[in-house]
């Protein structure tokens, strides 16, 4: 049963990802990307990582993609950009990236063939994830939080500059 569910979810994830790349309408592409991320969440769940699956839905599908849609709305892209996007999909643009991605895919297939039975029967519980994050991978967590803090400070600086400039203009 689980292999069938796995292949269905995987097919949906891959299909949605391909559609996300080939849509010229930015909003449609984003919707397919969200579907692809949800498919990956199902894969995580089936592979015995329910916590990663839940975080995939909450963080990627639920928060980061919302911000992407937010940007699309802010830019309010019309038909003009859609045509431009259409031109960007021509053969010469995707040939080289396509070949490189193909090589990587081949390597991945070889690597996967060498591991035995990736499906695990007992799921990794949230507690185990937390213990490994704040145990052996403590440094990684701290570095990631530093990176996020840098982003936060940068955004604050840019936003503040904008506010100050506006005030000068109005006074």
């Amino acid at each position, binding site marked *: 049963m689980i292999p069938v569910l796995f292949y269905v979810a995987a097919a949906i994830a891959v299909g949605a990802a391909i559609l996300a790349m080939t849509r010229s309408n930015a909003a*449609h592409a984003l*919707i397919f990307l969200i579907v692809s991320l949800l498919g990956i969440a199902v894969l995580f769940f089936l592979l015995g990582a*329910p916590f990663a699956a839940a975080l995939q839905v909450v963080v990627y*599908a*639920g928060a980061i993609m919302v*911000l992407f*849609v937010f940007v699309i*709305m802010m830019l309010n892209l019309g038909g003009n950009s859609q045509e431009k996007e259409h031109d960007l999909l021509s053969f010469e643009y995707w040939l080289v990236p396509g070949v490189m991605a193909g090589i990587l895919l081949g390597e991945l297939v070889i690597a996967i063939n060498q591991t035995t039975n990736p499906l695990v029967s007992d799921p990794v519980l*949230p507690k185990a994830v937390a213990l490994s994050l704040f145990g052996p991978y403590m440094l990684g967590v701290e570095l990631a939080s530093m990176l996020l803090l840098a982003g936060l400070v940068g955004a604050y600086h840019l936003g503040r500059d904008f506010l100050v400039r506006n005030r000068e203009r109005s006074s």
Partner: protein
Amino acid sequence: MDELRVISMIFILIGGAVGGAAVMTWFERRMLGVWQDRLGPNRLGPFGIFQVAADMLKLLGKHDWVPPFADRPVFIFAPTAIVIAMMLGFAVVPFAPDLVIIDMNIGLLFFLGMTSLAVYSVLLGGLASKNKYALMGGLRSAAQMVSYEVFMGLSLMGVVMLTGSFSLPAIVEAQRDWWFIVTQPLGLFVFLVAGLAESHRLPFDLPEAEHELTAGFHTEYGGMKFAMFMLGEYLGLMLISCMITTLFLGGWLGPFLPPLVWFFLKTAVVILFFILLRAAIPRPRYDQLMSLGWKVMLPITLINLMLTGAIALWQAEATL
């Protein structure tokens, strides 16, 4: 046999939730009438309850129109997203000791994930309408939901810390001595406000804001598509109330009465409180809403988290 039980529960739940949402439209208007010293819909049937059927017939009879300038597939998909997500959210709610569709060890995270997916309904509805008011409504809701989601999740971490699990039945069982409303009052307060903002109901209905944005994200919607948005909103309200009951008010726990009755009584009280808030509080300005979120709610949540963690550690030390 077990599958049959779960499947029948799913169907009962879907029927009950949709029926409950329909009755709630009437109930809410009557209660608003009581609190605002007027009558509300009281003509059709006893206490006006058949108003629900009349409204439903009217919505079904309306022309199901898609504006020619709209992004047709997205426009049609948008209202379904919120209903599907909210319905899925009910799957982890424990109504009574054995009455839960799925008891996952990530139940609480599943609920958070579903509420965050429900946002797409409003966003895509606003985007696909190709209308400036709808777009403004969608933009507002995107910012509002993303910010309030942050501390909606964080406010529940105190409960998780005290329980030691994300499983909702385990959280209810952990409240045998003290309900979490006693030990986590700040968590409850923040979750209540964030839940209100997530279901974009009246004090926080900035995405619709009648007198600024005509009707916000659903300006272009009519008939059954509009009804789907409303259904999703009421389902969201019920889901949030069920979660408050489960997480802070002891779920099914209570003396004398059977567990299911206790659960529904508590949920009804929470829903009533939400309706009272709608009647009592005016809508804030948009920047007030955002600064309330980031400057008041987030610090409260972090303080709550720190205190809870400190006390939990201290107690663990004491028992050693």
